[in-house]
């Protein structure tokens, strides 16, 4: 797919080729008291993939993402990212290693403008130290301007020009989801983890979002993990799909494999014999 608006510099081909993103999850188990949220999950995502995780409510999709991004600590199993064991690293370390995410219930800063929200994501890319910052030296000013340029490219890409100076708290739900995507992209993640980016959107907003995600993945080779309930979207844009049910891995494969899988059909639609 060809971009009409120009390609943001952070997605230049040279930069994308440096971004290695090999995620390996091995026999991951997580329980809350007696409830097994995840049991012995294996999963692997490779660079350039759009990997979708689906499953009924309470299947453990968000728990899996929270384990990968460091918010939950699994009881057993390992997570490797680019051959490094990241199982028990705190979230801020994982962000530095290139794992960026959005949240199911939008975790933006409602009292800040769209720009300041996105500027926060540039935190890990700021290189100036405390001494220079406290005097606001010309080098700090140059760096801040460079970050602003990057954000403006992302704002152009996500078509958010009219709202860049609006408070996030005053934006409609669909736009907030878009701002959150923009903020996650400003992190320049090697792997982008999206927790239900289409939830609560109307059709036009979903179409826009699909356009952005497809351009990111197919045009600019952004590796992504997508958790989503909307089957038509998942089936049309993802390359590989993993299905979870009650914390267990039910199936994994291409779109066709999953659509024909009897176990998956049973989990979603129920068993014929019980009717």
């Amino acid at each position, binding site marked *: 797919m060809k971009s009409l608006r120009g390609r943001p510099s952070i997605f230049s081909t040279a930069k994308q080729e440096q971004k290695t993103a090999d995620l390996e999850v091995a026999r991951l188990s997580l329980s809350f008291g007696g409830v097994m949220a995840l049991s012995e999950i294996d999963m692997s995502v490779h660079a350039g993939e759009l990997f979708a995780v689906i499953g009924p409510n309470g299947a453990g999709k968000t728990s899996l993402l929270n384990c990968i991004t460091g918010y939950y600590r699994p009881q057993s199993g390992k997570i490797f990212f680019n051959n490094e064991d990241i199982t028990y690293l705190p*979230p*801020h370390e994982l962000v530095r290693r290139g794992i960026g995410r959005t949240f199911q219930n939008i*975790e933006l800063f409602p009292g800040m403008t769209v720009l300041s929200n996105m500027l*926060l994501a540039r935190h890990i890319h700021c290189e100036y130290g405390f001494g220079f*910052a406290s005097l*606001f030296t010309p080098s700090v000013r140059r760096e*801040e301007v460079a970050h*602003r*340029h990057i954000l403006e490219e992302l704002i152009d890409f996500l078509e958010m020009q009219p709202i860049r100076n609006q408070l996030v708290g005053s934006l409609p739900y669909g736009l907030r989801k878009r701002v959150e995507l923009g903020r996650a992209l400003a992190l320049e993640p090697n792997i982008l983890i999206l927790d239900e980016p289409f939830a609560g959107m109307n059709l036009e907003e979903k179409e826009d979002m699909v356009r952005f995600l497809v351009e990111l993945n197919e045009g600019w080779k952004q590796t992504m993990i997508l958790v989503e309930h909307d089957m038509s979207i998942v089936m049309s844009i993802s390359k590989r799909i993993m299905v979870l049910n009650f914390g267990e891995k039910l199936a994994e494969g291409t779109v066709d494999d999953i659509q024909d899988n009897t176990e998956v059909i049973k989990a979603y639609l129920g068993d014929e014999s019980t009717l």
Partner: protein
Amino acid sequence: MRKLHFHPCGNFREGYEQELTIYETDFGRTAVFLSLVLLFALVPVISGPYVLYVINIIGIASIAAIGLNILVGYTGQISLGHGAFFGVGAYAGAIFATALHVPFWVAVPCAGLVTALIGMIFGIPSVRLKGLYLTIATLAGQFIIEYVLVHWETLTKGTMGIVLPKATLFGISLEGDRAFFYIIFLSLILMTYIAVNIMRTRYGRAFVAIRDNDQAAEGMGIPIFRYKLLAFAISSFYAGFAGAIWAYYMISITTEPFNLGLSVEYLAMVIIGGMGNIAGSIFGATFITVLNEILRWLTDVFMNTGILQGVELSIAPIRELAFGFTIVLFILFEPRGLAEVWRIIRSSFRLWPFSY
């Protein structure tokens, strides 16, 4: 010289650099410059000794209040130990000056650094505690520091207090209110400038992010605990710096002033001035210090003139009463503080006298 821009009818920027400036227009820049010239040229000349003393106290309180605002207003960690940190700075400065014979210009920043270190130690509970629970933990810090200051007699001379040598700066002896006026207000300008700069770079943004939503802040790659400690350190540095200057200014210090009352007073300055607003801290410090002086004068009048025979003793606590009442009124009617009042006044004069 470049042309000045005042933009009475809108501010049309032409580059991202222009959005990084502290003042949006040259009007603000010029106004601040002129008022600083007036402050330094006029105020020390026309003020009497008492007025100059009050102004100096305002300057010192402003430095400490800016520090507390960074911690409370920007980072959202409510601290009830700021008065004690101010005391640590005062004592550190006094000990540097008397025991180690360190010159004034070294002792003051060093006292700030010592206080920053101690502030970080008392900030450690913030790794697990939030909100009210952290406030109680800092309250414990207040009492621990007070206890140590009184009872570590080999270092602090306990209740006897310490008498400081005269401050000298590059061979010039600093004596009297006027010399200290210049020292205090030059420091205040420098410390304000640093605080404003910290707040418009990644450090300030991280503080605000932690205050507003710490989970999302962590998701942005901000190590929360490290940044909370940094906020405690900066805030205590400001308190210690102010405390050391105060110690030199007062010549002799004892442990009494650095009690919980002082901590509450600083918190009141931040709340009344405007949380999360650097200029607000200065407004708040001015307001509280002046209010204190007025109330002191009023109680003196009541006590001495004998209009209210027989009720002198019950009149004495009127200071605390009025103090508390003011805070309640501010929280009710202008929770964003004097800084917001100032903003409203300024914006209503924006197109004066030809507004539509």
